[in-house]
């Protein structure tokens, strides 16, 4: 292998690592919003991703432009589902963390069953748009770069919302002190419903963006759920810095481990690293470092 080629390879691999980090942040951020603001561990998170994927694909099959289907339809549909779930299930269980976990797990199984009944177990998918591009002698998918860019834009947008809007102020307040919303004269039920809806919408968006890469099938959520959880819990309560720092850490570990060993050991090493991290930093990365961040 010539020197130029190995530089190209490093570049391609760097993009892979970046993509792994971005996709980890993307699939986790919805969960992070719900966990960070409501202290609800949503075990149906993987199914929200799955529903996002199906929403985008079904909309696309009915003639909606793919980008609109992914960026608009999927978050709206899953966000609405999120609000319904919060109103009909979650709100009865506030303060009962374990029961919330169990109920959302039940919801997860239920949604898997429901979607299997409707769409069947076959993988459905849409081809990734935009095709590939060459880096020296290597080819990589342009869509991967777009996912990285969208994730970055999404995180910046969340930052701006948190930092500069009234909604963001409430959110930050609630993260610091759960009774804040009431103190600010907002009705907590409304805040919770909206928060859960936003978290679900973000998950729907993530699921839609991942769909062209991995395809969608009813049980696809299971493949993501553990990764999303270790990212959120590893990151700690701060929505943005937590998600980003943990996604960067675990994304890098996973990609590097996968490249040098096998995908299985990539996953095993990442999960094991996460457990060690939680043991060392029970409050997550942002519980110890970056405390004042969002």
């Amino acid at each position, binding site marked *: *292998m010539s020197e130029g080629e190995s530089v190209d*390879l490093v570049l*391609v*691999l760097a993009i*892979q690592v970046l*993509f*792994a980090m971005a*996709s980890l942040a993307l699939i986790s951020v919805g969960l992070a919003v719900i966990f960070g603001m409501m202290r609800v561990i949503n075990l149906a998170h993987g199914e929200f991703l799955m529903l996002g994927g199906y929403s985008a694909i079904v909309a696309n099959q009915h003639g909606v432009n793919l980008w609109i289907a992914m960026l608009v339809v999927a978050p709206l549909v899953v966000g609405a589902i999120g609000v319904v779930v919060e109103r009909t299930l979650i709100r009865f269980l506030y303060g009962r963390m374990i029961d919330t976990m169990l109920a959302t797990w039940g919801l997860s199984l239920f949604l898997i069953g429901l979607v*299997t009944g409707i769409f*069947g*177990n*076959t*993988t*459905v*998918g849409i*081809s*990734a748009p935009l*095709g*590939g*591009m*060459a880096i020296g*002698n*290597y*080819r*990589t*998918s342009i*869509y*991967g770069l777009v996912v990285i860019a969208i994730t970055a834009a999404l995180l910046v947008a969340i930052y701006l919302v948190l930092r500069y809007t009234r909604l963001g102020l409430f959110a930050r307040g609630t993260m610091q002190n759960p009774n804040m919303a009431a103190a600010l004269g907002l009705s907590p039920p409304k805040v919770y419903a909206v928060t859960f809806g936003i978290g679900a919408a973000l998950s729907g968006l993530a699921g839609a963006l991942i769909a*062209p*890469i*991995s*395809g969608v*099938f009813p*049980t*696809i959520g*299971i*493949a993501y759920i553990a990764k999303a959880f270790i990212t959120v819990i590893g990151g700690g309560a701060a929505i943005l810095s937590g998600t980003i720092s943990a996604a960067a850490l675990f994304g890098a570990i996973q*990609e590097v481990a*996968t*490249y040098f060993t*096998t*995908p*299985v050991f*990539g996953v095993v090493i990442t999960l094991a690293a996460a457990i060690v991290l939680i043991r060392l930093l029970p409050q997550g990365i942002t519980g110890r470092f970056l405390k004042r961040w969002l």
Partner: protein
Amino acid sequence: MKIARRALLKTSAATAAAVSTGTMLSSRGYAADPIKVASIHDLSGGLDIYGKPMVDALTLAIEEANAAGGLLGRQLKLVSYDPQSNMQLYTQYAQDAALKEKVAVVHGGITSASREVIRPVLDRFKTLYFYNTQYEGGVCDRNQFDTGVTPAQTVQKLVPYSMKKWGKKVYIVAADYNYGQITSEWVKRYVKENGGETVATEFFPLDVTNFGPSIAKIQAASPDFVWSALVGGAHISFYRQWAAAGMNKKIPMASTTFAVGNEHIVLSPEECNGMLICYNYFQDLKNPQNTAFVERFHKRFGANYPNITELAMGTWQGFQLWAAAVKKANSVDRMKVIEALETPISIDAPSGKVTIDAPTHHCILDVHIAEVRDKKLNVLEDFSQQPPADTAAVCNLKKNPNDNKQYVIKA
């Protein structure tokens, strides 16, 4: 028992009709209980895309047999179980089929794991077993017949064909379980025999969906073609990510696993056009037998049936082989049927001639190489009467009738 009930309804309707017309039937005609045939295939859970066509094929086979007067003058009854891709239920249902329903034969099992779960159960309770899926080969058990193709039958043909077309450097990606492991061993062996080189072999667990790093690795190795032994829904991502990187236009691909789960229909034509595959059966095979079969199948299950798969045909052929043996033995007794099958039984099936290979209980059958083109599988070349050479290397039930295990075949 969806299907069983349907069969039952038919019988009772017939009875009702008979009674209403006042015809007295001879008691012998109805005294004979139906012959029960068990089906244990996943109809829900992760493997239902494989299981549904298999059960449909079996349903059609039994309905046609019944319409033609049944077997030995008795009607057939399908007892269908859905183990929901759950191994514990495979055991329970195999026990139920053998002990409670006392079926004459069990057709079932999709993964090798599920086969190895029910095989000992059916051995223990002396119930004949047909396993109709393509698999890694090596099962040596007088109670079991295997109608699917094994790697030696397909890989042996597709490897030289692909190498002649594309070149000698091969990169193997395979599902990380027995089937993938053994298939890739055979690929390596035939690549070497044909003077080529396997640059790397990579295994992926069945639930992996991110293939980015591996696609980079493959590019770094720059093979002449990629051999895929990937399996299942999650692995479809590989083809998608491969195409998204534009690699499908750069490096071609061959496979003996692609399209069994209708991957060529799920993926867009651009993503998989030009792939080479090799199987015993393709829906588009041009012969009168097959044309008639496809027509009947579509009449029964709808013309928009996605694809009659290799596994569906395996199940159809498995049933026909068994039925032919029952006729020959004039009995459903397990040993008599086994001995009849070993004579050996041979049938003309839509895929060509299928003959039981008595020493291995596998099949000698035709294989075909096809190219994926616009959601169709176009047959390019036929190879008639391929023996199960891999299993034959380790298994001879004529010499050792009490042999009972799955050999791990060294390619």
